[in-house]
């Protein structure tokens, strides 16, 4: 049974402390296991360890990138943070905003622009992992997710206006005019015409729908946004416009982003720090450019070698590292270092010993036994 695995909540009553007052979120020992069932009586035959003992910090006001192979657990991490899932184990320590009274909340919504509380005056913390039901509702406004699949995350039976303002209505907002203004303002900011509000989600192109989802996430003046492949359906020009908007909101309101993307040039552009995951675990963390020029994990090196360059003349020069061997299965991961069956540098030690995430200095962490010795190749800088 899944419940037997749930350790979270055992220490939920004390006020959890943050290790660093700069942090907005500290995730510690986060696990999300999905049961695999079989047969008529749904017997549990194993677990997909989608997120397996992951710890990381999100600093207030930063953009933290999260990259990794398809299926490695990025979306699951995000869904744990917004508590769309109850994590199997671990803590999500979150620094609360100053309590908003109903009155203050009203004032906040009454203008088109974004207003925000000064985050420096907040030092109360809470473990989001232990909250349930109604306790979570205040945080649903503060921590928002831009979901990866716009089509299934929008309600097809509601107009775009209703979709965007749903959270406001749920929190008791009644003025239709105010909501219209706000939805119209946001649509314009993401490059869509406010008149489109009356349409249903199916009447949009893929990239237009994705921007509707972005507007919906922004509608509550959130503090933390988990953007899951939020710009992946956009052409370069519209994408530049959205990235500029996100950066502008960040500098105006100290917004914090966890930015999940497979597009390493976008990550390069927008992120202050980057986390690399592989099969449910963090394998590398580094500041900005460092991860590109100076990767310290062989998986990151392979990732960097596969970045396509936008010039057909450089096709042949591309020296891609092919990842040979079976793709790891999160319900039955390899022994030792999970990457060892596909790693060109693996030695015997890698088959038996699981490497820890080691501090390599300068905010750079790597979970490879040979992180200090290997001389890995960075991305082709074009």
């Amino acid at each position: 049974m899944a419940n037997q695995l749930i350790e979270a909540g055992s220490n939920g009553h004390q006020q959890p402390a943050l290790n660093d007052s700069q942090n907005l979120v500290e995730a510690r020992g986060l696990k999300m296991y999905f049961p695999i069932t079989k047969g008529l009586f749904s017997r549990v035959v194993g677990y997909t360890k989608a997120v397996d003992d992951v710890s990381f910090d999100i600093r207030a006001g930063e953009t933290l990138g999260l990259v990794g192979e398809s299926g490695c657990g990025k979306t699951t991490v995000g869904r744990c943070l917004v508590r769309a899932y109850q994590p199997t184990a671990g803590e999500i320590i979150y620094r609360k905003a100053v309590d908003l009274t109903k009155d203050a909340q009203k004032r906040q919504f009454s203008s088109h622009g974004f207003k925000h509380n000064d985050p420096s005056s907040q030092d109360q913390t809470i473990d989001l992992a232990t909250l349930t039901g109604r306790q979570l509702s205040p945080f649903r406004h503060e921590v928002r997710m831009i979901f990866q699949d716009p089509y299934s995350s929008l309600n097809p039976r509601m107009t775009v206006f209703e979709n965007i303002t749903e959270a406001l209505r749920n929190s008791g907002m009644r003025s239709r005019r105010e909501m219209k203004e706000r939805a119209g303002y946001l649509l314009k900011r993401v490059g869509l015409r406010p008149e489109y509000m009356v349409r249903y989600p199916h009447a949009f192109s893929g990239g237009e729908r994705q921007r509707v989802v972005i507007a919906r996430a922004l509608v509550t003046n959130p503090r933390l946004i988990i953007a899951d492949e939020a710009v992946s359906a956009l052409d370069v020009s519209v994408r530049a416009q959205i990235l500029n908007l996100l950066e502008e909101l960040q500098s105006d309101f100290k917004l914090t982003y966890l930015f999940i993307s497979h597009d390493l040039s976008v990550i390069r552009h927008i992120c202050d720090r980057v986390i690399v995951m592989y099969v449910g675990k963090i394998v590398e963390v580094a500041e900005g450019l460092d991860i590109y020029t100076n990767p310290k994990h062989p998986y990151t090196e392979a990732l960097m070698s596969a970045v396509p360059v936008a010039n057909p003349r450089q096709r042949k020069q591309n020296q891609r590292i092919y990842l040979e061997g079976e793709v790891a299965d999160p319900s039955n991961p390899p022994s030792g270092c999970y990457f060892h069956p596909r790693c060109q540098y693996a030695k015997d030690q890698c088959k038996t010993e699981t490497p820890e995430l080691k501090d390599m200095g300068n905010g750079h962490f790597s979970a490879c036994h040979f992180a200090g010795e290997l001389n890995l190749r960075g991305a082709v800088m074009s």
Partner: protein
Amino acid sequence: MTEPLLEVSDLKIHFFTDEGVVKAVEGVDLVIERGKTLCLVGESGCGKSVASRAFMQIIRKPGKIVSGQMLFRRKSDDGTEEIIDLAKMDPKGYPIRQIRGKEISMIFQEPMTSLSLMHTVGHQITEMIRLHTDTTPTEAKVSAIKMLQRVGIPRPERLIDEYPFRLSGGMRQRVMIAMAMSCNPTMLIADEPTTALDVTTQAQILDLMLELQHDYGMALLFITHDLGVVAEIADDVAVMYLGRIVERGDADTVFNEPKHPYTQALLRSIPKIAMQRDELEPIKGMVPSPFRRPTGCQFHPRCAQRFNLCNQVEPANTHLNENHSVRCLLYEDAEARTSNAEAAAHG
């Protein structure tokens, strides 16, 4: 020698909505060749998906193909070669259903629009295979597993019993890819097929597509906003703006000698890894309202190189050479000028 598999001319698709007529596709001309890759790029909402859905006659209501031809070359039932106009086919008729999925197959932009929540992944792929080929359920299952393996799904023999909602975004996308490629189509339309894939998995999928293309002479129409991917795989590139193709040429020419101001601006907005932050350059201005299309050149309100004629004269398609054409008055003028000059020199 290559031969055209699909020749599209003057394709127009309009949506008849309560607010007015949305002219999503407004005169598209395209040639798709056997064994070749054509990449279609362009701004979000410019009509790429709608146009490509027309090739399979799956335009959603209230949309309609209002004019144009889509000549498709195929083997008829008696084995001879025939050319049919897809635009004239009944979307619900038997003939198009024979072509759809088998001869022309599509990887949809959003996997969940075409995967069913109610059925397992294995059920959906084997149904697809059995609909179009003469195989037993066991054989279909074996080839489904094989295909899932080739798109890099771990432990495919277990995955086929999963439901799509239990898969990651990229896994769903790869299930779609496996499904679309499982019948060896003559033409594959891939609409943003790798948006949810990390670069290493993406590279593997692109290799697989090119391999099938090489083995079976499959034509590939690849829609993507990722210009890195375009540079990697395209033989030819078509650039679309507001329902029309504004530039077309071989990949090398379009990337290194782009002529249309829109193409030039598009290439400038690519974020580069080596670049400093805060340098992104979006194209200024908003996409015009589909109800009030600009006069003259459709791009003129946003164009940095416009001149006095641009808001009056609609540019025609100008052939710069055999493999390169552009729809912009700058080049029409230039050509007219040289031909005038030539005429003058000879006269």
